[in-house]
């Protein structure tokens, strides 16, 4: 054993002598701390490698190759399958991340770059920034103290009952409105989500209505719709708890932009005598809701293409809530106006 190692040891001894030469060379050429790291990177990218030549590419036929093969290829022993149930972080069989196509939760996409998103990025966002920017002179400090952390007031006074008492409710109203930070290029309002919701009263008697509503919502939003059950009995409205009464579709990202594009460019212009969205709509925190009647929902191209498949008079109306990252209704309305949604009446901010 020792004899076998001998040449290796001799070689390593020689190498040990040679070694100091190399670092000295390197140190003389060194310019800054990152030079070594840069040298370790490959100089050529794999993206710059030219594709295979035309004749190679044309001659390649994977099906013919596999048929010409005599036997089968040896099958891989281990084929990964994502576990059906999550058994905790210590279990050896862990599911892959959601972005992995072998995951059970994987959803393909995105499939396109929506025109509305491109318009937002190229035109709308810079314009909104220029419109809503507030310049403060250099050195300006706001005389109003910036409120950070807890915005609710404490109970101050001598009463012993003030100790550990829940904080006082906000001034002048039941809820604490969102703070609007100064506008920068980072917080230009954008569309975060669209919720399409449809409550069908007739579904109490006939559950077919809810099925149709779900299909319509799925067709127009490209998102699986979720049914909701009534939680309480309300005799005045004929509600019974536990009965499925409404469906919702939460539309995000690419689908949301496609949905809004269709709505603004195709559906809304075809509605007769539509005034627009009511100016008082909004929840004070940048989310704006409006409704569509059943005959207006039927104008969506996805419904129109097979209008006969839906039972007559079962197409539902719906409420569309557009969630934006704006912190007040004024900004949200400005954003929606810029994508082409008209508003009417008195604006309430």
């Amino acid at each position, binding site marked *: 054993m020792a004899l076998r190692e001998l040449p290796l040891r001799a070689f390593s001894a020689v190498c040990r002598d040679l070694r100091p030469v190399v670092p000295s060379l390197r140190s003389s050429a060194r310019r800054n701390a990152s030079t070594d790291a840069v040298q370790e990177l490959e100089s050529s990218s794999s993206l710059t490698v030219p*594709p*295979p030549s*035309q004749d190679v*590419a*044309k001659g*390649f036929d*994977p*099906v013919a190759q*596999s048929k010409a093969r005599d036997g089968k290829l040896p099958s891989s022993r281990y084929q990964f399958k994502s576990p059906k149930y999550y058994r905790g972080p210590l279990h050896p069989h862990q599911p892959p991340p959601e972005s992995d*196509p072998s995951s059970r939760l*994987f*959803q*393909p*996409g*995105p*499939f*396109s*770059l929506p*025109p509305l998103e*491109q*318009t937002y*990025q*190229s*035109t709308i966002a*810079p*314009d909104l920034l*220029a*419109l*809503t*920017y*507030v*310049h*403060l*002179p250099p*050195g*300006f*400090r*706001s*005389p*109003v103290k910036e409120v950070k952390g807890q915005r609710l007031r404490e109970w101050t006074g001598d009463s012993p009952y003030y100790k550990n008492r829940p904080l006082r409710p906000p001034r002048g109203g039941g809820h604490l409105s969102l703070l*609007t930070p*100064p*506008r920068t290029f980072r917080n230009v309002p954008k569309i975060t989500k669209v919720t399409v919701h449809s409550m069908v009263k007739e579904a109490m008697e006939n559950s077919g209505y809810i099925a149709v509503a779900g*299909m319509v919502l799925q067709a127009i939003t490209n998102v699986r719709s979720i049914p909701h059950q009534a939680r309480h009995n309300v005799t005045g409205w004929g509600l019974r708890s536990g009965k499925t009464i409404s469906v919702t579709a939460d539309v995000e990202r690419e689908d949301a932009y496609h949905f809004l594009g269709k709505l603004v460019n195709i559906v809304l212009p075809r509605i007769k005598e539509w005034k627009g969205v009511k100016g008082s709509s909004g929840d004070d925190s940048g989310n704006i809701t409006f409704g569509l009647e059943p005959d207006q929902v039927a104008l969506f191209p996805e419904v129109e*293409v*097979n209008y*006969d*498949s839906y039972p007559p008079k079962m197409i539902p109306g719906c409420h569309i809530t557009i969630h934006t990252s704006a912190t*007040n209704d*004024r*900004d949200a309305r*400005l954003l929606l106006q810029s994508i082409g949604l008209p508003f009417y009446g008195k604006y309430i901010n």
Partner: protein
Amino acid sequence: MNAGQNTARRIASKTGSSICRSCRETISRNAYSTAAAATVTDNHTEALLNHIPPATSPSTSYGVQAGVVLSRPPVITRDLHPFESAFFLYQRRLNERLALPFTRYFYFKKKTPADLEWKRKIKQRLTPARDIGRYKGYGDEAWNDELLVGAPESDVNWQVERLLEDADKPAAKDEHNPGGEVEGLVQKDKVERDMVEKPMPRVTEADLKGDVKSLNRMLQRTLYLLVKNKEGKWTFPEDRLAGKEALHDAAERILVHSGGINMNTWLIGRVPIGHHEAKYPTAKSNELGLKTFFMKARIMAGQANLKDNKLGLADFKWLAKEEVQKTVDGKYWHSIKNMLAER
């Protein structure tokens, strides 16, 4: 958009000559009636600590100009990067494998012409998606689902053509030849179809001619109006402020004086989006140089017309960002490059 209380305009209007701006603002603010005395004294001491002495009017200063960055936003979507289009195509093909099966009878009633049409199409492409080529996610050869190098399916124009072809509706359907398997029949069939209107070309005539004065060029890009001024330099339309004129008023005036009234424009906001500072080589009487503040505007309709303009402009061009760089001089470009959109 909290333009309510503390805009620069209001603050400036409140400033007097005797005390500094921050002191002024702090003192003049009315405290709420509760604990008024305490807060006022508190603010006052703080204000004294933060005191900045008021600026006296300087003997020499810069002249102020307003400039207008008049732009035409992109009209059509941009061309996708080859990686983007390849990625989208890959995801669409993957989706065909993972999505629930197409609910055929929900969309096509049995034995209708639409159903026969559907059968014919699905036989050709094997998958409900119209623009991804032949794709089979199931069966013995499902593993062979990758596109080969140089496949026509990866070309965007090919995908657009397939969509258009699919949108063509049969004019009159022959009941006896539902499949249309024979090549000749398919060809004959095509002639009888009502063709869908083709989309307009993405490259216009102005692009081919290299006409830089047309607004119909480079539809995917933002175009900016550049003018040739008296000195023969290419700049944005600019002019000195007249008297106590505000920047946005000046911008509107400049648009009328330079491009004429035949432009429907929208001035975006009242805040400048950038500035350029030019020093005179030799200082003139109490003026060191010229500062230009740029206002943003969009053109909605119309076209610039320099005929009898009041700013002495000789020529104009509508240019995209990288063309602007080649046209204006280096220092000017350095000041304006960050306010121009990449696309």
